[in-house]
């Protein structure tokens, strides 16, 4: 079982990122579940979404306490949330950031998803879309295949810029 926790802010598309990742995993022939933590969230408030990926049907509904991977779509949540909480020893971090930063020694992957989205003019109501490019970064990390990542994106979004943004994130991910 591979467990992922996604940190973002309400309205940034963290839930959709979880769904895209689950769909890509299913296209890889695996089982997956994706679910947000539903509280009294508002636009802009820190939120988390979860994804489980496994080779067998997933029977667990409770929240993920010890993720294998933490994705931070909005680094500003790190001021108010301990995004590394419960991260397994050897677990990885994927950061949406321009600069690399130390995440307490955890293997950290960095990609400027916001910059990619702005470059591709991938915006909704003035906010850059992060959830389709992040799939490219996850494919580069080997979580899903790039073929399935693209397939998941095109199944959910018709605008081809989503795929080109994912391809850019695949190329620009820094380990």
């Amino acid at each position: 079982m591979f467990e992922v926790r996604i940190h973002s802010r309400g309205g940034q598309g963290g839930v959709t990122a979880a769904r895209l990742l689950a769909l890509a995993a299913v296209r890889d022939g695996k089982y997956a579940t994706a679910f947000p933590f539903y509280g009294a969230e508002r636009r802009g408030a820190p939120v988390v979404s979860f994804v489980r990926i496994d080779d067998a049907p997933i029977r667990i509904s409770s929240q993920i306490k010890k993720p294998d991977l933490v994705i931070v779509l909005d680094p500003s949540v790190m001021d108010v949330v301990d995004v590394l909480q419960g991260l397994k020893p050897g677990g990885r971090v994927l950061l949406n950031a321009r600069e690399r930063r130390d995440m307490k020694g955890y293997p950290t992957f960095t990609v400027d998803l916001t910059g990619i989205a702005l470059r591709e003019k991938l915006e909704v109501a003035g906010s850059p879309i992060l959830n389709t490019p992040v799939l490219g970064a996850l494919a580069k990390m080997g979580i899903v295949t790039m073929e399935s990542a693209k397939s998941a994106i095109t199944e959910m979004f018709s605008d081809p810029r989503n795929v080109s943004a994912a391809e850019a994130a695949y190329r620009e991910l820094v380990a």
Partner: protein
Amino acid sequence: MLTVATGNKAVAAAVKEAAPAVVAAYPITPQTEIVEQIAEYVSSGELKSQYIPVESEHSAMAACIGASVTGARTFTATSSHGLHYMHEMVNWAAGARLPIVMANVNRALGPGWNIWAEHTDAFQERDSGWLQVYVGSVQEAFDAVLMAFCIAEDERVLLPVMVNLDGFLLSHTMQPLEIEKAGDFIPPLHLPHAIDPQNPCGYGTLTGPDDYFRLRWDIERSMRDAVDVIRGTQERFARRFGRKYGMVDEYRCDDAEVVIVAAGTLGREAEVAVDLLRDEGTRAGSMRIRWFRPFPRLDLSGRDVVVIDRDYSFGFGGVLAKSIAATEGARPFSVIAGLGGQEVTYEDIAGFVRNRQPGRELWFGVNGDV
């Protein structure tokens, strides 16, 4: 077609396959996505149903009743307070022997205002004459809705069926979903007592004690006959679509010395607890209650029983624990857990089994050991 969908979207996709003539519904969290999606299917022409947006849940069920008495296939969806707002009509639907199918997304009742999972909302409708099934996955939600129409509309049953799925834990959780083409799986509805709007006549519904008593017995007779209809429908489903369902979903029970009983997602999570306990050397098994009405028989003889209730009947006990004590003569360790969406993990469930005290009741997390 294999996709990834929420439980709500799975219910809507199954309704599209069943193609009811009439859908009447009122939105309520966490069910809203079901009726929104159905409304979209109708608006895009993918589903040729009459969609009636009503002003309340009471009216939603009343509209379904009005449509159903003409022999039309009908569907609605609700949750929690919505279910209770339609309570009067819920009873009427069963008494009038109308095969209405309703999805109920299980949610706690307020106050305190709470939108998360709990089974008390639907358990409170247990004496209404509705059949009730509880699902444990997104796929099962889809499958249960398809089968619900077959079971409700079978002439040996002709009672409404409520398909229950846990709020958020299933309604908003995305899992793989195989959307089946129903084709002729659901036979056309023939309602023997349908009224004919083209041939209007007056009906006096005042029913004296003798006839009323016979009509009540007839509901119970059909509820008993429903067990065979459920089995037959589930077997037909397995042959056609390859997924097997029982009245109860048993997991590693054959040689089990202790059995965990639960409904909904907790029943699925319990299977992981069973694996954990087996690794420790405890011969554990689990029974996930799928059908709550008619209530199933469980093979519990000679076993310890741990029942987890995501519900409570105040002044009495956990509804499942008390039901199993009554029907099987069991002396379960009754755990009350998950009310209002309280987080309960498979590790917690394994702990209930390790620390079981037959005959006692535990309120998980509040030290409510009674």
